[in-house]
């Protein structure tokens, strides 16, 4: 979720204090340690029970097969073998990757919007920011319900508007060719405001003297944008790309609320987490579901690590 934060976290971790010397200092140190342990105790217990133990447990479950009455037996790598041969799982992974890629296309849009909001002397920036941010804070289920209605093939407003310009629409969410793209459009709609705000903060931190120097050298607005703005904004672009991808790879709410179980587009629209939910809590095949979510962990880690590797090539650092 907050992978980028961890980098700063590692850097910010204070160096360990020098060992205690005199008896008095040692006593003080022991007292401080007592308070330290006391203060982290509640959350350490909570995290251990509800987060750390579950990591180990899920890994273990991914090597088990679950019976109809809740018992489970060790089956080794069987779930993973099944996963590789499972067409639904492969489909869900491809859908999720495609969805994530499509949602990434919202980032250039966010950059353009942030650049517009950063135009000198523009009024109403705070107002625009509120409007663009509204979808970010709205409950995804509620968002999905509205868009289901907009996308409706028979009486949705989208098809009505399209008919005005001579395009005949489709039943967007039940047509297997358009369902995933339609969901991704909503995904973009929900993330654009967030990315825009981060990128705008990045733009505002670019020192004006770069532009002044470029202006003296006779650079035009496009030259300035690509030679100054983009490189200096690249850390922010990297940040929103990593975050958007991690979140898009975990998409569930939108798919769950927009694609009903009887929807013919389901195989072409279901995401990995959707499949995980179905296997774990509808089909009660928890061992297999655990393998699915472990695979998702690997996918997310690999994609994020690759991004951090590639970062050196394009992200500008001072």
């Amino acid at each position, binding site marked *: 979720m907050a992978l980028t934060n961890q980098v700063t976290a590692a850097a910010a971790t204070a160096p360990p204090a020098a060992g205690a010397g005199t008896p008095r200092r040692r006593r003080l140190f022991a007292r401080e340690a007592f308070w330290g342990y006391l203060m982290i105790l509640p959350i350490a217990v909570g995290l251990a029970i509800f987060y750390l133990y579950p990591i180990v447990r899920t890994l273990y479950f991914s090597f088990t097969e679950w019976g109809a009455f809740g018992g489970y037996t060790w089956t080794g790598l069987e779930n993973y073998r099944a996963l590789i041969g499972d067409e639904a799982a492969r489909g869900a992974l491809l859908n999720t990757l495609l969805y994530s890629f499509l949602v990434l296309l919202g980032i250039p849009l966010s950059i353009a919007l942030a650049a517009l909001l950063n135009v000198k002397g523009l*009024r109403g920036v705070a107002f625009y920011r509120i409007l663009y941010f509204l979808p970010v804070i709205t409950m995804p289920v509620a968002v999905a319900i509205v868009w289901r209605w907009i996308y409706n093939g028979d009486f949705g*407003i989208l098809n009505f508007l399209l008919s005005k310009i001579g395009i005949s629409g489709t039943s967007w969410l039940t047509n297997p060719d358009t369902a995933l793209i339609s969901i991704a459009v909503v995904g973009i709609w929900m993330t654009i405001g967030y990315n825009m705000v981060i990128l705008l903060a990045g733009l505002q931190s670019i020192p004006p003297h770069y532009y002044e120097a470029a202006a003296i050298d006779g650079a035009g607005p496009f030259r300035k944008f690509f030679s100054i703005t983009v490189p200096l904004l690249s850390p922010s672009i990297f940040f929103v790309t990593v975050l958007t991808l991690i979140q898009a790879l975990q998409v569930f709410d939108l798919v769950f609320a927009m694609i009903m179980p009887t929807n013919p587009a389901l195989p072409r629209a279901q995401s990995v987490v959707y499949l995980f939910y179905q296997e774990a809590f509808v089909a009660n095949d928890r061992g297999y579901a655990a393998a699915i979510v472990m695979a998702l962990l690997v996918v997310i880690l690999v994609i994020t690590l690759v991004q951090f590797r590639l970062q050196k090539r394009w992200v500008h650092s001072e």
Partner: protein
Amino acid sequence: MSDLLRTNRGAETAPAVAPVPPRGTRAPTTRNGVDRGPRARLWPVHLVLIFGSLIMVGPFLWEVLTSIKTMAESTQVPPTLLPEVLQWQNYAEVFEQLPFGTMFVNTVLMTIGRTLGQLVFCSLAAYAFARLEFPGRNAIFVAFLAVLMVPPQLFLIPQYQIMAGLGWLNTLQALILPGMFSAFGTFLLRQFFLTLPREMEEAARLDGANPLQIFWHVALPLVRPGLLALTILTVLWSWNDLLWPLVVNTDPLRMPLSAGLASLNGQYDTPFPVLMAGSLMATAPIIVLFLVLQRHFIEGIALTGSKG
């Protein structure tokens, strides 16, 4: 120890509040070069931004308009913009289709419980990680960070097993409990504590205060912006959370609004205007909160780089 006695280098220059990204409002000075253009030249920019705003706000307006139409009118082609007769009873209908009041209370209690839990537990631990020395501190902190690396769906099956084992499925505490503990919140608040100058805490220490007293009386009041950011994030995340409630509480009387709406949405015969009315009522409290605290919302969420 030596670490504690050393004064904070940045303290002289840095204010005692955590860094917040710059506001959206513009400084009057020259920025970003292009130093021409009276206001009149900005209309194309406004045109694009207004067009974008329509796309952002349009679905909400359409939702409001649909929510006060009859089913027949809402499915009319071509659609009407304004309803012929206002159908406010669609809002009453939501209460007949769902135990909406109970779900609302469940959502509020879940949100308050998780938020209070995180504020207390995360701030305590965050202070200890930022200021106190104890063996194994860094190792424990790294274990906390490991939680952040993992997609949260990975915790679901064992969390569910724990709740089932305790006989807590379909209870309020099942909704609240795991969400009271957050590695992210601890990390976030730790960053805020680290930016505080140490002098005031040192003074309290010399007066004989213990770390808990210093935390409570001196440090905590100084990280209010961090507490506010964490509150906003946790409220938003709890209010909108779907997957966990869907898993643990299948009894409609124990569901929060998100799961209730999803179940209404899943019924084939629910009239769309009623669904719209339900969605609006479920999201209205957060939207109102957002409009009241908008700057804090946007900055809090932007600052932390997470939607929860």
